[in-house]
């Protein structure tokens, strides 16, 4: 079996398995709450998702829409995780917004349908695009599509077998709304990737996003509040500051951010006072029986939360990567000005710009050597930037797997985000790409370099 066919099969199984799991737990939750009628808006959501899938498959969206989908998968994770966090707080008795109850039946149904579409569409559409690309590369549409479709259908067969009822009984009683939302976000985290084997889970995307968020918060705080004379500050001071957003600390801090809501829930589940029964309990035994049932229910509902916390923890660290690996930091190749431009060929006997590795070039201007980086991004485009960011001292960037890393503050930046301005990203340059080379205006290089040296980019970030 070719790699394309097996990958399409795996992608199909992943999407089908996610759908089956969500179907199983949601139906079990509704059964326990005696509201099986709410499966109908769920089915409607699935039908709408199928229609969106069909439309996108036929329309074959372009690069921009794909980028949007990748972002959307990350946002859906965060929205469901945030919802579960709020629901966990609510379930733990911390009423953030007072008693939250959707009493309007029509509104509840609309929310379920919309959530179903929002949850499944990015993954299904994204994965279908991946399968479509695989089919085009293989030039064997039938084999790849059939493989993906059969993989998708395989887990759904469980719905019509006794496995569904048995598994439903097994999970019954363990899921309330907070646990279900947490379950959805964990499923999304573990299986929300839409790039086949290259990115099966959302873990790298979420890690990168959270780490960048954490880093930016710490970094900007120091820059704007505590170190106003930056970037003139000496390197030693920034090395101390850098401890706070070194990758190890930011991994731990972002993990903490993820684990705080379930931890609060568990704390409340095990340590919060058990409420007294209302007027119904006539005897002490009845009162104890009521309280005991509350305790038992709390413990049962804590089981999936503990399970998911362990899952997040294990997956997080297993995917954290080798942060101690040495950075690839090539020596800059000298380039010269030619009619107001720097011209860099894609290939020459000593290098290949499209090989995915970090390339550095040095333009001498007066007494200074200005460093420029070029790297091929996962989407095939070239990122062309100054070897400096708006915040740190211009020590430049090194490369490790899938990221470039600021040598000054050791902040990792995903290669896919290069070319975006702001924060710790290297300052992008507008390059003209021709068939054989790329060209950058020297005036732009000098202007942006001057801003770095004088700290004006700090104002731009503001």
């Amino acid at each position, binding site marked *: 079996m070719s790699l394309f066919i097996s990958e399409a099969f795996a992608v199909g199984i992943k999407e089908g398995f996610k759908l089956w799991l969500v179907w199983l737990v949601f139906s079990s939750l509704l059964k326990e709450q005696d509201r099986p009628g709410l499966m109908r808006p769920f089915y409607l959501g699935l039908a709408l998702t199928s229609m969106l899938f069909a439309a996108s498959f036929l329309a074959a969206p372009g690069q921009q829409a794909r980028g949007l989908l990748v972002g959307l998968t990350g946002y859906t994770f965060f929205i469901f995780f945030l919802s579960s966090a709020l629901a966990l707080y609510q379930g733990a008795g911390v009423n953030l917004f007072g008693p939250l109850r959707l009493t309007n039946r029509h509104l509840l149904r609309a929310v379920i349908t919309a959530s179903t579409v929002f949850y499944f569409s990015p993954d299904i559409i994204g994965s279908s695009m991946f399968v479509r690309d695989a089919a085009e590369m293989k030039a064997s549409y039938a084999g790849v599509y059939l493989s993906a479709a059969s993989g998708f259908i395989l887990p759904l067969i469980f719905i019509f077998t006794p496995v569904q009822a048995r598994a439903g009984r097994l999970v019954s009683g363990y899921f309330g709304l907070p646990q279900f939302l947490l379950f959805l976000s964990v499923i999304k985290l573990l299986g929300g990737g839409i790039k086949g084997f290259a990115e099966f889970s959302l873990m790298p995307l979420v890690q990168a996003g959270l780490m960048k968020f954490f880093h930016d918060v710490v970094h900007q705080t120091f820059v704007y509040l505590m170190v106003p004379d930056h970037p003139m500050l000496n390197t030693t001071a920034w090395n101390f500051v850098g401890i706070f957003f070194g990758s190890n600390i930011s991994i731990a801090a972002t993990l903490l951010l993820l684990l705080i809501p379930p931890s609060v829930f568990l704390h409340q589940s095990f340590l919060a006072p058990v409420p007294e029964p209302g007027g119904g309990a006539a*005897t*002490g*035994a*009845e*009162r*104890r*029986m009521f*309280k*005991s*049932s509350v*305790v038992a229910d709390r413990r049962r509902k804590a089981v999936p939360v503990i399970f998911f916390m362990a899952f997040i923890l294990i997956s997080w660290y297993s995917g954290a990567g080798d942060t101690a690996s040495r950075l690839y930091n090539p020596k800059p190749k000298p380039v010269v000005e030619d009619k107001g431009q720097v011209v860099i060929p894609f290939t020459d006997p000593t290098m290949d710009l499209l090989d995915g590795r970090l390339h550095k070039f040095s333009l001498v201007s007066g007494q200074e050597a200005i460093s420029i980086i070029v790297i091929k991004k996962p989407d095939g485009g070239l990122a062309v930037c100054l070897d400096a960011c708006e915040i740190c001292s211009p020590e430049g960037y090194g490369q490790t797997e899938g990221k470039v890393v600021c040598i000054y503050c050791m902040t990792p930046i995903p290669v896919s985000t290069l070319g975006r301005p702001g924060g710790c990203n290297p300052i992008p340059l507008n390059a003209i790409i021709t068939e054989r080379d790329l060209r950058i205006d020297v005036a732009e290089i000098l202007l942006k370099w001057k801003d770095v040296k004088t700290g004006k980019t700090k104002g731009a970030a503001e």
Partner: protein
Amino acid sequence: MMDFITVRGAHREYQTASALRGVDLEIAGGVWCSIVGPSGSGKSTLLNLLGGLDSPTKGQVFIDGVDLRTLSENEMARFRREKIGFIFQQSYLIPYLSSLDNVMLSQYFHSMTDSSEAEEALKRVGLGHRLHHRPSELSGGEQQRVTVARALINSPKILLADEPTGNLDRENTKLIMELLKRLHEEERFTIVLVTHDPFVSKWAERIVTMEDGRIIKDEPLY
């Protein structure tokens, strides 16, 4: 309408003997019924059937409308835990636990512990000053009072007592019987008490006499 306790044609046969030979009995809820008879007449066997500790080889036992045969082992355990309290001739208190802990143990197996409620129960049986004493530091009468508190702590609907005063002198027997009478009047749970002592049986509202595995007399006292 079925009475709270209904026994229909109950037989209990062992390999070499028949302990019960077709017992029919109905006891209304809240009644105190004594079962008397000579040794080997089947009194304790009948009590074990009522408590779900044994099952009839033939016939049926209904408690509060539930046919005990239909209950699984777990359901039976839950049924006993929630509906039945036991007192035996021996106190069967855990020797290394205090009176309070012995009562709380019963709460634990029922649902969850509540020390203030257990304390209150021991005070009701006159042992407020013996809360932290172990069984070996209590007299026989006091031990049996702990068992009464333990049996009633979970508010059972039936109290099954098998020779509860068999090991006590007359003075302590009287104390226990007065205690049971007071509690019965306060809470109106059903009592089925097996004894061969006429002094004990006369505290009941009804006396059932057994002989050779059968009921031979059934008389209300008042």
